[in-house]
């Protein structure tokens, strides 16, 4: 089975990158000291492990969300940012930092999730009763622009450079200094959202024929839309609430995998989750290996890894005349 082999291969890749993420950093922790009382093990267990778990969960969630949104909107350009949920969640986090000087993970997470939930409800209200994906994507784009504009405004009134640096974390995405508190906060939301999204597979396949034909096949488009809004909202909202906006994963992972698994939307979902996890783990390991005291932001590393792959893919696809 080609698909089973691919899934197994991706799972092994994710496992290897997970271990690599535990090993990567400015301090080398010999494998002999792992699971011992050696104080260096503490670096792995307390600093790198939560970070690796978050990278795994968030990468999987964003990869899956990207595959679902591209299928739902039948648009290869779609990614988790089209819903406006990422910019709204980032706005919530930034507002908590600037307006309330919040620094506790729970406070920032709560503010980001509240903003994400608000934008989801607004999106659902705007697209309500419209079974067309066009209304949906327009509403999301407007929300994204609004979130971006308000975030820029908050940066302009940020009280001090510390707050500005903190804000940039939320705009560029970062897994630095994340603890088990963030893991516990975000993981349940991402898991529930991911499960909701996995239920859309068959509807996405039917939408390959367009909305009218999909409805004639017995599909309830309003139910699909509800699953997409709730699932993507939970995954993206919770991800942004702990790491900030991590772009690129949701856009490029489905494209990288389509030549391997075929274009059928449902067949892309699980591989995209694994591929997303692999990409975020790889990028987050890379940012720690860069020289200098400050780490590169995750979003930047992702773009540096993803772009060459993506360009290579585009050149290949251009020859097959299908995008």
């Amino acid at each position, binding site marked *: 089975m080609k698909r089973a082999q691919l899934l197994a291969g991706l799972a092994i890749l994710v496992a290897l990158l997970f271990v690599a993420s535990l090993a990567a950093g400015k301090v080398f922790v010999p494998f002999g000291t792992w699971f011992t009382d050696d104080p260096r093990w503490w670096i792995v267990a307390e600093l790198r492990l939560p970070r690796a778990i978050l990278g795994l969960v968030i990468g999987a969630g964003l990869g899956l969300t990207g595959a679902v949104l591209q299928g739902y909107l039948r648009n290869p350009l779609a990614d988790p940012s089209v819903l406006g949920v990422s910019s709204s969640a980032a706005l919530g986090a930034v507002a908590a930092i600037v307006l309330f000087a919040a620094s506790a993970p729970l406070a920032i997470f709560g503010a980001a999730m509240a903003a994400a939930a608000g934008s989801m409800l607004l999106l659902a209200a705007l697209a309500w009763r419209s079974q067309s994906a066009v209304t949906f994507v327009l509403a999301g784009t407007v929300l994204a622009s609004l979130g971006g504009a308000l975030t820029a405004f908050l940066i302009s009134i940020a009280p001090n450079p510390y707050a500005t640096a903190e804000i940039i974390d939320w705009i560029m995405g970062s897994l630095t200094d994340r603890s088990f508190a963030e893991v516990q906060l975000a993981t349940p939301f991402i898991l529930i959202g991911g499960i909701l999204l996995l239920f859309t597979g068959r509807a996405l396949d039917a939408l390959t*024929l367009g909305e009218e034909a999909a409805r*004639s096949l017995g599909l309830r488009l309003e139910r699909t839309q509800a699953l997409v809004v709730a699932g993507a909202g939970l995954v993206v909202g919770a991800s942004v609430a702990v790491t900030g906006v991590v772009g690129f994963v949701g856009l490029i992972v489905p494209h990288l995998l389509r030549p391997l698994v075929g274009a059928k939307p449902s067949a892309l979902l699980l591989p995209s989750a694994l591929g997303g996890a692999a990409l975020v783990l790889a990028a987050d390991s890379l940012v720690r290996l860069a020289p200098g005291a400050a780490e590169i932001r995750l979003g930047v590393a992702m773009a540096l890894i993803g772009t060459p792959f993506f360009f290579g893919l585009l050149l290949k696809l251009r020859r097959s005349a299908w995008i």
Partner: protein
Amino acid sequence: MDLSIDNLAVTLGNRKVLHGIDAVFRPGKVTAILGPNGSGKSTLVRALAGLADADAGSVRIGGRLVGRLEPRERARAIGYLPQDASVHWNILVQDLVALGRMPHRTPFAGPSAADQDAVMRAMEATDTLAFMGRAVAELSGGERARVLLARVLAGQPQWLLADEPLAALDPAHQLGLLDRLRGLAGQGMGVVIVLHDLVQAARAADDVLLLRDGKVVVFGPAREALGHQPLRDAFGVEVMVIGDDQGRLLPVPIGRSLPPME
């Protein structure tokens, strides 16, 4: 089971597209819907498929309101081939045809033997088995049209509603497809197709519904509905009626009618 519409009125945007249509379509027959551009043919077929919101009136299958049926049940009974032949992802031909089985399949389960069998039969009936393993982008427009028809047939519906299924086909495949539709009707399926070609309608249809401005001009046996006066009323054209070797009367448009005297 009859597919019937009673006093059906449909508005799209601000435009009243259908005005109080009454018709009863019978299974085992091929019914062609014809009419000028914008006369409401596609909307009528969409309404029959349960996909258009009616302002007034009803669509029933075997006496039950189509709009009240559970969507999967409706989809098993009525197969609909839209005019829009776009396929948004470059999927494999057999995966596309298998989409037609969706109303029959249980969530998260693989295709059953019956599903696979129905897909093969549908591909056989549309002469598309040779495309197995090819991706949609590798097909010509006409080949794709046949694969899309196979998708509908794979659902084994009691009713087949097709909106301009001949549009992308060459003459040989047009004739082949009409023969297959006649064959399906012969097996008891109800077939309703939107056509533009009067000659093809006369060859293939048992009954013809002529629409103009959202109203029925005439609905009856093809021989009568495709006569001089109904075609003049519906299209504003004059036809020359020629007989073919099987005794069918084929109306060939030869000119526009003179406008009626005011």
